[in-house]
């Protein structure tokens, strides 16, 4: 355990020193990034060792006997620690050149300070072993990320995003508090150990409350509303960490509570799976409708959380219908997708950050042709897109493959498990197709074609630290896609820590699946090489000329004639019209010689659209009626406190 705490200390000292050295920007950045990455690297090594040699390590601190802070690392924690430290490490390196442009030294220092706290608190969340430790770390994580979101605090948009995030994370925390409160009411202790002693109704209630609470952090539909606002507002390396890792702590919470409750009702699996299906499909539909690159990526995180939940749901259904193979497949697939999504999503956010850094444009319809001058960024982005669409031989496929096989195991069952499995499989297929459409849109519009505005003309890519981080992540996407064995092993270790009553998970069937994936990927890559050779053979000594794109006879093409992202997606979005209403705004074209005109469109998120009417307005109305309580008279406030204490004495 000590190595874990040492790495946390190094990370925190990096954040602290950034404040001290804020005046010497260069020095501050070198020292901070060095300390952050050293800390993350040590933590990563420690976590990998802990997975490989499973041993439960724990540590406990008591302060004045008032409350005790307890930490524990088991397989599940170690798996999430790997994800947290790996992505934070690369984001820290990436930030070295990303934070170059901003002339504001103090702001950069504060950013690093909260960044280090965020990394440390995420690591503490997944190792916390009692409620107090957990909620303390959880709140520190929420608050530090809140300060990171309002990085550009002088822009109203950022402040609004921060506010929204603040409200969501605290309403979520309130639900978690409620869940923990029920547990405390039954067990009378703050420990996690005795949760299985709860009555069945209480367990269901605890699970639902914590699902809402953790779901609002993870970005499960309809609690995802903050995500598409907060992610674009934060600097890109922060978005990478938030979207790649922080939202996964919500997944961790759901899995942890599930494992602690030790209650195998089909209800849990069904809830999680249906939530996954809805988040998955709607997330990617909304992503398809976005023009802002980072917003699009944020919505796609909602989709990937959906895929993870589908995997977990299949796992839970497998457990409740006593089908261990299906259970392990589902959970393993879900965990693999946690790891994979953290890799390709942070890669994509870093790519988006590079684009934003160099062009200053967030809308993909203002870009185009970036691949020509941004070779490394463009290639990395394409690899990330292939991986996020779940295509072989990239890492996204591996997790989905496991979830599919698990789902098919459920098809052989009957009744609700059968229906749920069909739902899972078909929606995974639809999500895969939509993700492909969404990311071909991003690549096709932003990176290919011709520049649509001046900002996108001749954009270079600079900043070795940024390029290195992206290249490592892109390499990881390919490596895991071809050689997933060790990562599957890691996920299975995390599954065996779930306390599902499977004494030891046999590894053979999974080793075989890993072998099959490697085999299939190798066959495909060899085929590609052979086709390359064939192509080379036929092009030997041929004349190759270049000319303009065939405009179907039209001789005066302009870049404005290119297909836009909105038109690319509109055909598909039509199909989902009821769930994704489209707002269009354009004046009528009149007269023989129409003057300048415009067209605006925006795809609405029904959760956000209805949030105002269903929740915000009634709450505002209620509190408006209660406004008389707040009158500003201090005597009466003291009176309130006294009254509250007396009432509490009577009733409790």
């Amino acid at each position, binding site marked *: 355990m000590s190595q874990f705490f040492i790495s946390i200390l190094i990370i925190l000292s990096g954040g602290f020193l950034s404040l001290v050295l804020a005046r010497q920007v260069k020095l501050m950045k070198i020292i901070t990034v060095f300390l952050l990455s050293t800390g993350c690297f040590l933590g990563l090594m420690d976590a990998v060792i802990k997975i490989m040699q499973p041993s439960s390590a724990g540590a406990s601190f008591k302060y004045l006997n008032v409350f005790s802070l307890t930490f524990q690392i088991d397989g599940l924690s170690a798996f999430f620690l790997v994800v947290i430290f790996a992505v934070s490490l690369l984001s820290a390196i990436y930030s070295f050149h990303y934070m170059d442009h901003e002339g504001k030294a103090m702001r950069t220092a504060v950013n690093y300070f909260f960044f280090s706290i965020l990394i440390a608190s995420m690591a503490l969340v997944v190792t916390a072993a009692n409620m107090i430790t957990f909620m303390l770390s959880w709140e520190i994580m929420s608050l530090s990320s809140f300060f990171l979101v309002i990085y550009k605090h002088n822009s109203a948009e950022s402040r609004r995003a921060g506010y929204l995030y603040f409200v969501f994370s605290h309403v979520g925390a309130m639900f978690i508090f409620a869940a923990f409160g029920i547990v405390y009411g039954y067990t009378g202790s703050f420990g996690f150990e005795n949760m299985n002693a709860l009555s069945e109704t209480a367990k269901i209630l605890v699970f639902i409350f914590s699902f809402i609470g953790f779901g609002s952090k993870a970005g499960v539909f309809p609690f995802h509303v903050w995500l598409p606002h907060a992610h674009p507002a934060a600097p890109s390396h922060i978005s990478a960490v938030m979207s790649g890792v922080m939202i996964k702590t919500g997944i961790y919470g759901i899995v942890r509570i599930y494992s602690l409750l030790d209650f195998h009702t089909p209800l849990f699996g069904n809830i999680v799976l249906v939530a996954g299906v809805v988040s998955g499909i709607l997330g990617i539909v909304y992503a398809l409708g976005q023009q802002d690159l980072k917003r699009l990526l944020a919505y796609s995180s909602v989709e990937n959380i959906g895929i993870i939940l589908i995997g977990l749901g299949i796992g839970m259904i497998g457990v409740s219908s006593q089908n261990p193979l299906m259970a392990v497949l589902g959970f393993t697939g879900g965990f693999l997708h946690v790891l994979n999504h953290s890799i390709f999503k942070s890669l994509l956010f870093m790519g988006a950050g590079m684009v934003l850094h160099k062009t200053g444009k967030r809308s993909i319809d203002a870009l185009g042709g970036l691949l020509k001058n941004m070779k490394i960024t463009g290639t990395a982005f394409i690899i990330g897109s292939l991986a996020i669409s779940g295509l072989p031989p990239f890492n996204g496929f591996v997790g989905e493959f496991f979830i599919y096989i698990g789902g098919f195991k459920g098809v052989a069952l009957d009744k609700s498990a059968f229906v749920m499995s069909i739902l899972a499989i078909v929606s995974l297929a639809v999500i895969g197709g939509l993700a492909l459409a969404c990311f071909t849109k991003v690549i096709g519009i932003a990176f290919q074609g011709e520049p649509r505005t001046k900002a996108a003309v001749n954009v270079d890519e600079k900043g070795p630290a940024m390029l290195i981080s992206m290249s490592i992540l892109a390499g990881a996407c390919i490596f895991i896609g071809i050689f997933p064995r060790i990562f599957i092993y890691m996920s299975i270790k995390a599954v065996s820590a779930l306390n599902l009553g499977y004494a030891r998970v046999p590894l053979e069937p999974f080793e075989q699946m890993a072998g099959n994936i490697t085999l299939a990927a190798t066959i495909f890559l060899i085929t590609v090489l052979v086709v390359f050779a064939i192509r080379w053979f036929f092009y030997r000594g041929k004349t*190759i000329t270049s000319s303009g794109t065939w405009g179907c006879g039209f001789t005066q093409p302009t870049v404005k004639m290119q297909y836009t992202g909105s038109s690319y997606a509109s055909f598909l979005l039509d199909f989902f019209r009821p769930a994704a209403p489209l707002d269009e705004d354009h004046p009528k074209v009149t007269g023989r010689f129409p003057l300048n005109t415009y067209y605006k469109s925006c795809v609405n998120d029904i959760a956000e659209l209805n949030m105002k009417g269903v929740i915000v307005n009634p709450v505002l109305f209620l509190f408006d009626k209660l406004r008389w309580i707040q009158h500003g008279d201090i005597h009466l406030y003291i009176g309130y406190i006294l009254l509250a204490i007396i009432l509490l004495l009577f009733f409790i």
Partner: protein
Amino acid sequence: MIESIILWCLAILTAPFFAAVIIKVKAFFGGRTGSPLLINYYTLIKLFKKGSVYSTSTTAVFKLGPIISFACAITVLMFLPIAGHNSIFSFNGDVIFILYLMGLGRFFTIAAAMDTASPFEGMGAAREAYFPIICEAAMFMILIFFYRLTGQLQLSAYFSGDNTIALWNLGGAPLLFIVISFFIILLTENSRVPVDDPATHLELTMIHEVMVLDHSGPDFGLIELGSFCKLFFYSALVSRLILPFDFKISAIGFLIFIIGLIIVYVAIGVTESVIARYRMDKVPQFVLTSFALAFFATIITLEFIK
């Protein structure tokens, strides 16, 4: 193994021939003699002899498109049990890999089309991204049906040896739905008429053809050959389904398989001749039919198996 590899090579080599059957049938319906059955080979040879013109808007992705899509098409054939013989490779879950590999091919076809900055190709790409989503859902529904019957998740478990006969014995009439469903998927995935019309002169109305407008020479040859292979893959599946008989003598087995293939290709030709292309917004409904059929088939088997 060697036998399977020879069959695989034969499949790639004969795929253009079978595709010409469609042209012949359409010519017959049009009252023409039509081009010879070897026309596709002539075209391919012509293309492979040529050089290429590349648009100045394009990047390396444009050149990668034909390579990847062709590699995907022939890799998929490696997993196909041709004429009931074992496929070269086969493992539990290979169907999922195949379907996703086709997705990879599609990704690069679309990316190559978007690379040209042409509005027409963008339009084609948007449609190419749309319709196969429904096809994929239908394919997975069919897989669920097959899994329900056999408990297996590999192509060879459905299509090699006497497995297909066993499938009919287990599934019975609902399998007819699957055949129709497969045929609809075949038409959609291979951009045939009522979904797409490669023969029109207006780029606006095409899907697949418009996406490859800017490819030329050997690159275009690879794309063409790849699409023949893809068509062969689907036709082989349908052919096995409609003539599932397994004779121990392989010559008769082959003959039956080829007859099945020709029936499928003729059916495509007839469909193309008697039906007009649907309006674009009607196409999703047509494709959804395949999903609905597979879904009904699965529901029916629920009762049968009990």
